């Protein structure tokens, strides 16, 4: 930017800062929004929405249920493995299964996903083997899967960065004349990052086929949503010139319908959409923090009543869409998955020590070559001493 434009851009921002916000009571914005797309109530009752209709077969409903149950089982296993010292860290998705499975199952194979570090359910939908997600948390790699095999980018730790990558990728999709879409995941905390605002700007300006899927799980580590925003998050989109919609993030049907609609809009060349999935993180941000220090037990209890898996189970049972054999079979499948994950983690090989020098550069580097040789010689000196 030029000096002139810097000055011009910054001045009004400063002067307007104080006037509007000062006296508004610090109520939690975004917890009492008027619009919340819902197709399945917490009691498991099917309701209609004028803009988002969905008609799924019993098979499809059971498939969504299976996805959520297995994802939760995988997540629970990973949490347990962290407690047993097998993983250095884990970011649990407990409570966010509907947001992830609903949006993940709305995607086409040729769509591209840019996740944060908590999108285990989306990864599941993309066909990424869940054991591959654990390498980073065990400390044997920084990724563990080829992003282009399943069109599922590597996890991104610095929050919000990936929304720009998604936008750029979507700009490329549009340039290629392809009709696929891109989805970027981020959280309510990341919505405060400049990169997310810049991604909104770029995507709107270039009409990029990208869906911004914000899982508002109410807490950014210990900071509640009111520390991030004074307006409901989905309303941010309006200021950037594209639609924002809030969906019940614990309703897998609504998440599927809303995301599908946003993706179709992107495919039609109508640009980005912000989807705010209103949900709740039932556990800690990661296994490193203690949510009992920053939030009340009653709050968690109130969200337990909105559990995404229970409500779909109630619906399946009431509709006669699943019998006892289905649920029993799924329990067994869950245990098999848990066992497979546990064994896979424990048998992950220690990476080759020389691997630290691999892939620093695509074209190679004389400096890295020199240091690799020094390191190899140093290691070899131990072998010689031992003889």
């Amino acid at each position, binding site marked *: 930017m030029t000096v002139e434009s810097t000055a011009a851009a910054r001045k009004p921002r400063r002067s307007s800062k104080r006037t509007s916000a000062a006296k508004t009571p610090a109520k939690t914005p975004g917890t009492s929004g008027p619009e919340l797309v819902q197709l399945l109530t917490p009691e498991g009752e099917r309701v209609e929405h004028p803009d988002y209709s969905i008609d799924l077969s019993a098979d499809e409903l059971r498939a969504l249920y299976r996805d959520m149950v297995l994802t939760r089982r995988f997540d629970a296993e990973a949490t347990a493995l962290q407690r047993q010292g097998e993983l250095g860290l884990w970011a649990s998705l407990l409570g966010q299964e509907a947001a992830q499975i609903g949006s993940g199952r709305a995607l086409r194979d040729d769509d591209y996903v840019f996740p944060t570090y908590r999108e285990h359910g989306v990864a599941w939908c993309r066909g990424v083997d869940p054991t591959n997600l654990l390498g980073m948390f065990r400390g044997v790699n920084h990724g563990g899967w080829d992003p282009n095999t399943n069109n599922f980018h590597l996890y991104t730790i610095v929050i919000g960065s990936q929304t720009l990558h998604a936008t*750029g990728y979507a700009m490329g999709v549009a340039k290629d004349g392809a009709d696929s879409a891109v989805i970027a995941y981020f959280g309510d905390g990341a919505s405060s990052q*400049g990169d997310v605002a810049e991604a909104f700007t770029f995507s709107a300006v270039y009409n990029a086929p990208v869906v911004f899927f914000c899982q508002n799980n109410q807490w950014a580590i210990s900071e509640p949503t009111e520390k991030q925003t004074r307006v409901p998050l989905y309303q941010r989109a309006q200021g950037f010139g594209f639609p924002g919609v809030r969906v019940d993030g614990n309703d897998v049907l609504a998440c599927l319908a809303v995301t599908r609609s946003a993706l179709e809009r992107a495919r039609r060349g109508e640009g980005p959409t912000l989807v705010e999935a209103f949900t709740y993180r039932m556990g800690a941000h990661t296994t490193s923090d203690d949510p009992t220090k920053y939030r009340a037990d009653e709050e968690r209890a109130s969200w337990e009543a909105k559990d995404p898996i229970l409500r779909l189970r109630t619906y399946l049972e009431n509709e006669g869409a699943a019998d006892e054999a289905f649920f029993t079979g799924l329990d067994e499948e869950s245990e098999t998955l848990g066992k497979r994950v546990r064994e896979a983690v424990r048998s992950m090989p220690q990476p080759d020590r020389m691997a630290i020098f*691999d892939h620093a*550069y695509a074209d190679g580097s*004389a400096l890295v070559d020199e240091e690799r040789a020094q390191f190899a010689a140093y290691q070899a000196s131990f072998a010689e001493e031992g003889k």
Partner: protein
Amino acid sequence: MAMEKMSIAKALNESLRKALDTDPKVLIMGEDVGKLGGVFRITDGLQKDFGEGRVIDTPLAESGIVGTAIGLALRGYRPVVEIQFDGFVFPAYDQIVTQLAKMHARSLGKIKLPVVVRIPYGGGIGAVEHHSESPEALFAHVAGLKVVSPSNASDAYWMMQQAVQSDDPVIFFEPKRRYWDKGEVDTESIPGGLHRASVARTGTDLTLVAYGPMVKVCLEAAAAAQEEGKSVEVVDLRSMSPIDFDAIQASVEKTRRLVVVHEAPVFYGSGAEIAARITERCFYHLEAPVLRVGGYHVPYPPARLEDEYLPGLDRVLDAVDRSLAY
């Protein structure tokens, strides 16, 4: 042979034109790069000839520019982005350091990010704050990035070609006060590798190492020293990451004295790295400690004082004298 005399600015423009023409995946992105042709006119006329889809005026958001360029590269494009001035790169520093530099390694080589980040850098043009800085060491320190700076028109032309073709991200520092210096460019034969240093002037008594805007100062200093009977060799580093230590070593083994010159602050600067490595490599060849000439550990001063801050002929010659006095 297609020898042509052109300015560094023109050489960069011609090089970018050739890159756009050769590879449909190459894109130019940045603030004001389209109709205006960039504040230094490096992209002059390119949007007119290649269209708004190839030469893209961006919102005024540096992180957005680099972040979306990463996304475009993931999709198979080869973006060349312009950061308007050195001091404006910091909003993009996060994307460059945490994402651009690391994605190839963390994907175990599955992802390539052929992104060139062009940064007009350095002082000497009487600019206001944030328009004259030399932050190259901040980028050279980061593994995964390649950092280069041409000092003449021929290198500007060819190094840009090589940077665009590189599968690694390249931070391309353009010495803005030399944009209008002219030199011969052979647009047909590639002179040398992107990361190879070149001997800009041969000598036997002392080696001066410099890059970008300081090469000219060092050549002038060597010419002045010649009049006093001192034979000074000038090595144009060209690449700050990786560094061609073999070339510096070869020169120092001959001259036995080394002075490193750059505009950036001396403290933690490129000169420190060069001094340390060359001391390790050439300890028994050196007749004097490696000396450094550069900026002070202060914010870049107002334009009326920049001549005091920037290494000039006299400061370089003073260092030459100090080295030869050992």
